[in-house]
């Protein structure tokens, strides 16, 4: 208000609405889509850089490695995308993943219950139940998702240790081993990668082509307005947290398949990687904007960076983690600037 009125005084005849010449329409289009183009640009730059800087980056073997490395994170990131779009957060994904994996292995080994392969759907159901608990507490009781899922992080981690008595379980269902291993491929593509892509595509379908997906966006964009449009926003938030728990559970299964063992004290690092990948892709932490396409880009950036840095010669191995963080920060900065451009562009239209 203040700004408007003083502007009116300062430039009484100012006319900001001058028509842009047609040659600038490409720029306008780019500005409008900056949320997708900024991470894409980052990705392209990285791929070009690593292709020239290392000899092995562009080999089939290495690309297969990248796919296998990011596939489990990609599955969890699909669910986290729903949660972030709702303007909520899920900090329990890593622990839920570990717990689901431990449960599947534990039920396979059968010290108490021997369910065989049925342990797999049962452990996924357990993950879903965790999601229901998260969602109910957040959406209906009103505990902030940050606190609720932080508590669930501890609970699920503790349950993994309790169930497995704190020791890794070295027998896992062979189905999962086949799914998780680098060597199982279809036309040279690791099966685990195909699985992850299928989950991402399903996520994109739900987000962009179903009623629920639209509700997720609108609930995240303005919860009160969604409520005043007759959207059951509590249900939307709850379901998003259930989806996130289920995809985290699937990630846990992929992990024990890849490692051929379930370790109750590992896997915590995927929490940061997953959320980082989603945010790097350009999905807003404040809800309502972004989507699965952004998440895919974020995952690729993340995968290429972690893989590429390992291939670089002449960099002390002890410095790599810090360097990875620095590059991610740079990518986030690019996103922020891109969004500023996008905002200005859409405001002026």
């Amino acid at each position, binding site marked *: 208000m203040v700004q408007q009125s003083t502007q009116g005084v300062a430039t009484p005849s100012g006319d900001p609405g001058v028509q842009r010449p047609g040659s600038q329409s490409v720029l306008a289009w780019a500005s409008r889509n900056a949320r997708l183009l900024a991470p894409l640009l980052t990705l392209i730059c990285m791929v070009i850089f690593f292709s020239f800087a290392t000899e092995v980056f562009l080999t089939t073997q290495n690309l297969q490695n990248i796919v296998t490395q990011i596939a489990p994170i990609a599955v969890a990131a699909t669910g986290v995308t729903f949660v972030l779009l709702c303007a909520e957060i899920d900090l329990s994904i890593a622990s839920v993943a570990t717990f689901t994996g431990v449960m599947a292995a534990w039920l396979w080994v059968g010290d108490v219950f021997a369910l065989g392969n049925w342990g797999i759907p049962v452990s996924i159901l357990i993950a879903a139940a965790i999601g229901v608990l998260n969602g109910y507490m957040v959406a209906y009781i009103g505990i902030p998702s940050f606190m609720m899922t932080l508590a669930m992080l501890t609970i699920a981690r503790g349950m993994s240790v309790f169930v497995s008595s704190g020791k890794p379980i070295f027998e896992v269902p062979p189905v999962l081993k086949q799914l998780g291993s680098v060597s199982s491929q279809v036309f040279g593509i690791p099966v685990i990668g195909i699985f992850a892509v299928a989950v991402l595509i399903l996520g994109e379908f739900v987000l962009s082509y179903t009623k629920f997906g639209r509700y997720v966006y609108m609930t995240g964009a303005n919860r009160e307005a969604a409520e005043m449009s007759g959207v059951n926003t509590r249900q939307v938030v709850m379901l998003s947290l259930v989806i996130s728990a289920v995809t985290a559970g699937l990630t846990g299964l992929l992990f024990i398949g890849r490692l051929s063992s379930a370790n109750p004290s590992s896997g915590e690092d995927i929490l940061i990687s997953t959320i980082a990948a989603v945010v790097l892709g350009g999905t807003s932490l404040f809800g*309502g904007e972004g989507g699965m396409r952004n998440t895919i880009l974020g995952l690729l950036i993340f995968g290429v960076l972690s893989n590429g840095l390992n291939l670089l010669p002449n960099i002390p191995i002890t410095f790599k983690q810090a360097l990875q963080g620095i590059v991610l920060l740079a990518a986030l900065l690019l996103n922020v600037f891109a969004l500023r451009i996008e905002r200005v562009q*859409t405001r002026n239209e």
Partner: protein
Amino acid sequence: MAGTEATESAARPTLPLPPLDAAAEPILAFRGVTKRFGGATALDSVDFELLPGEIHGLVGENGAGKSTLMKILSGVHTPDEGKMILRGEAVQFTSPAEAKARGIGVIYQELSCMPALSIAENVFLGSQPTNRSGLINWKQMRRDASHHLGSLGIDVDVSSPAATLSLGGQQLVEIARVVFSGASIIVLDEPTSALSGPEALRLFRAMDELKARGTSLVFISHFLEDVLAVSDRVTVLKNSRKVATLKNEGLTKQHLIQLMIGHDADALAESYVGGVTLPPPSQAETVLQVEGLTQAGSFHDVSFAVRKGEILGIFGNLGAGMTEVARVLFGRERATSGAIRLDNRLIAPKSTRAAKQMGIAYLSENRRATIFPRHEIFKNITLAHLDQIVGGIVREKREIAISTDLVQRTGVRPPSPTLRAGNLSGGNQQKVVLAKWLTVQPKVLILNEPTRGMDVGAKREVLDLIQALRAEGVAIILISTEPETVLAESDRILVMSKGQITKAFAGERVSKDLLMNYA
């Protein structure tokens, strides 16, 4: 009424005010202050004088210029023309902080108490007394706070949280904060709208106490009784101009309403100013019936019925409880007691979704709570009835096609459904929200301030659309704080005041001042 003409011409800058206390030098004076926003004049060469130790009431209709005057006074706006003289010295505030530093304090309608902090901390918010080492001197703070509040007639334990106080109590705490930060001029914006009778009396006592100490108070309100109860003088604004400043001796509410509405030529042209004759009550079937609806703390024993193809207007001032009634009907809030019948069936909408599915639609008065500025217009429009519109799979093409029709029907400009809603002006955003409720024809359409902030043309378009919906048999509840809108469009009219229905008009002649008299 004889004084009206004389004082009307006093709005011109050169004429002196009616002789008042000639001895007193005004602590603050506006001389020919004009403020424009774009093409619209919000304040037109207004003179205004505030004497030391007086309570000065400021009244006028919505849009008369009250809040602009207040915002100039508090440094939010700077005048385009004219002078503001504070203690005999011409001043120009560039920020609210500057006004505050010069001793002008404002108590806004929305309180800014921190409910979790103690009462003492709230009194000293931002200026806590410190001891020599720079730490907060809690002892002194508590002692001073309880002393200050005691002098305003509040005797409370200042170490308990502010949330334990009633709304009126919190208001007094804010007044105390402003007073003891050194304000000698205090502006109160609609302070009584949320207060109960006894609480308002307590506020008035505190105001009198401040006045006795030489503080000057500006009291802005729609509640004319309240203004008349405490003010020494009252200034009436109308259409951005000052109509009169009157001594509060023998003034009546009727008198003030006459001055606020006035009888100038172009207003007379509009029939509703003189009054409208409501049509004979409709005999169509009752769609929505409300009996003894009560929500503790906001409205009490509200009963009415709306028939098919009828517009029921509800008029009242801000805080009269109309919005709360609407929110209960739309399932956003729960009633404490009472019954709601839709098509003769008892209903109790538990959620907005439930209400929507029963055929109740609600256009909220709060635009921030209705629009998705960063999303396309068509997504804003299709959200409420997405399932009926797209079925199983969302196809944006179909959504855009449906929205294109509705955008034209409601007169959204520019009429392109793929534009982001945030790029539209406020009035056009309101049309988008209206369009949202027309994707599927509702049985009951509740409109809360549907034309607020719109220019005359847009207003007409929306009102025409509402009349068209009425003709199609929709039962419409039209809630507004603008008497013109309610008068011009309604079949029957209810007036609400402080949570209760004070009057129901049907089939008779109603005028604006009659409406305002009951509010």
